[in-house]
């Protein structure tokens, strides 16, 4: 996981806790895993349920479970995507922190230049 650069003296520190972001990514991964498990368990359970099952109710259940399974797997995939977003959020925070630090460096250079100019003018 990328790290967050420290704020230089005088620069604004970003509001970001890498541990919280990591916890979110982990919990979303866990949720995705639970959904994928549910799809697998349903698959196995349905294989047992269809023993000796015949008639219109079975045809209905076979059609319905395919739709439910697809919906479950798709939700799991979106959870994985969201977990990846949470991991990348530290990069966004790092970019903001770099910006704040650069602003602070620029402010310092500007002040130094002004001071030098003042010393030249005053004999």
């Amino acid at each position, binding site marked *: 996981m990328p790290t967050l650069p420290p704020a230089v003296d005088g620069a604004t520190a970003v509001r970001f806790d890498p541990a919280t972001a990591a916890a*979110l990514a982990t919990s979303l991964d866990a949720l995705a*895993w*639970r959904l994928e498990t549910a799809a697998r368990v349903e698959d196995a359970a349905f294989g047992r349920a269809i023993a000796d099952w015949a008639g219109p109710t079975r045809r209905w259940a076979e059609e319905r479970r395919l739709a439910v399974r697809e919906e479950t797997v798709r*939700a799991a995939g979106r959870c994985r995507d*969201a977990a990846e977003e949470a991991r990348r*959020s530290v990069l966004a925070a790092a970019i903001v922190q770099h910006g704040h630090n650069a602003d602070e460096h620029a402010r310092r250079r500007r002040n130094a230049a002004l001071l030098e100019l003042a010393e030249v003018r005053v004999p």
Partner: protein
Amino acid sequence: MSQSSARPAELHRYRRELQRVEEHVADAEHAARRSSQAFADACPDGGAVHPPFHAVGAACAALHGLAQRVGQVGDAFLAADQGSSAVAETSDAQLAHVVLQHFPRLAVPGILAPLLPRLATDVAADLRTAAETGRHDLTDLRAGVPATLTADPAFCRAVLAATGTAHLAALVDVVARGQLPGVASTDLVWLADLFARGAGRADGRGPTTVTTDLLADAGGRTAVRTLRAEVDRPLDHATLEAVARATAIEASSWTDGGHPRLAGTDGVDRGDDAILVEAASVPGLALRLLAGTPDGAAGDPRTPDPGTAARITRIVERNGTTSQVGLAALLHAALDDPAARDPSGARTRTGLAVVTGVVTGIARIPHDDGAPAGVRPDLAGLAARVVAGDHRTLVHRTTRGRLATRSERLEELRSVVHHVAGWRPPFDALAAELVVARRTAATEHVAGDPLALALAGRLHGVLAEGAARADVPQRPYDPVLRVAAFGASRAAGARFGRAGGAVAGRGIDVVHRRVSDALAHDPGDAAARLARATASDRDLALAVVDRPPAGATIVWAGSGVADRASLAALGTGRLDHAALDQWLAAQEPPVRAAVAELAAAYRAARAPSP
């Protein structure tokens, strides 16, 4: 018959296992929600993360629903199967029956579609029993049929077919009679929904055989009217056309015997209203229903199609005792149909047939005091529209042809105006239209076309005569009084002999007249209102102002009227009349003569004779 089988224990196990994993997913979702909230609080500069909680919730709900329904299928097998084996085996129909009875949430098309015919037969059998036993409360029966099924047109068609026309008509009659008048009935609405969904064929090309059979006799047509009056759910156009043609065009609720449920609180039959109002809302249908056949290319385009006119006359005449709301809507739609006019705006043969058929039909509705027949507000409004909108055609017809024909047409027009004058708003609208027609006609007269002013004057005369007839006070009790007076005279003659009876008879006559006068309704004031609306010659003067005689100029200075706008603003009051007279007096002789000539031409036409 096909069989269904399953191991209920395995289906229940499926439900349990899915419930377990669903709980795990729910726990993981709660944890993720907490983490997401913590991230939102602690990391506002980290950009947005979008956890798909909505999709997860939907997937959980879908898993839960599937698990529950599969478990219910297991329950249904246990309930339907009488055996003790691990494998439950039962007929599809019995399984479906159990599903309907105990697990209505399972009544989804996927399960029930293959069983629809059998289920429809079961429901129809219950409906037939209800009809045979005169049961008007269908609450239990309705509760046993899931909405999923009744929303399926195939199921509705199957139920109607299995119930049969005779039982259906009888059931609708029984249920309708068991409801309070004017109060919405859930049972009737349920039956009406069933009919609305199942009346037409699946391909949308017209009514089913059952509907066609229902429309073939009076009882069936009354049932269809009753059902259509209960719901707004539209029929497909082809079925609607067949229903409207059979119920309200070829027959009518009144001639089919009516029904207490179809009568308004005033006792007037409203049976055809719902169907005709619906038909009026379908573009082109009104004219197609009324014309019966396409507008014939043959024949003089200036004359109405005689077959269509006679058909419309019959329909209108037959509705003399009904509410006329639906009929008026249908006729308005027919008059508005683009096919009723040619590209130049003139009436086509069919359009003319609608106009003349309406006039003849309304004219034939009796004016008798106290009679059940009469023209009610909606039809009076339509009549006013027809007379106002097509007055040139209608009035011109009273001046053409043989004497007998002219007399008949003139009398028809008077009769129609008599009907309209019984209702204040339509007659006042007609009077206002007359003022507009006179203004237009005066302009045309000054431009060299005298026909329009003659027609407008003739219309004025017809309106005045019709209004005068309507103003005669109604004496609804006179028939009773005449019988009473006759009986009293005979009794006096028997008691006092011929001489004494004659003296007593004169006294009885006096009392009869006084009682008749006392009970007579107040006379109307339609003629007076018409006279007030048309009292001023202002419009004639305006026509001359706009096109003064050659060499003449209009004098404004000293005339009491500043300019044309002030002249146009003059009303019909006494001071306005005085102002107009003063303005006329100030004009040059040719102008005065032109206005006088217009007024004379107009007034000469106001005494219409055949």
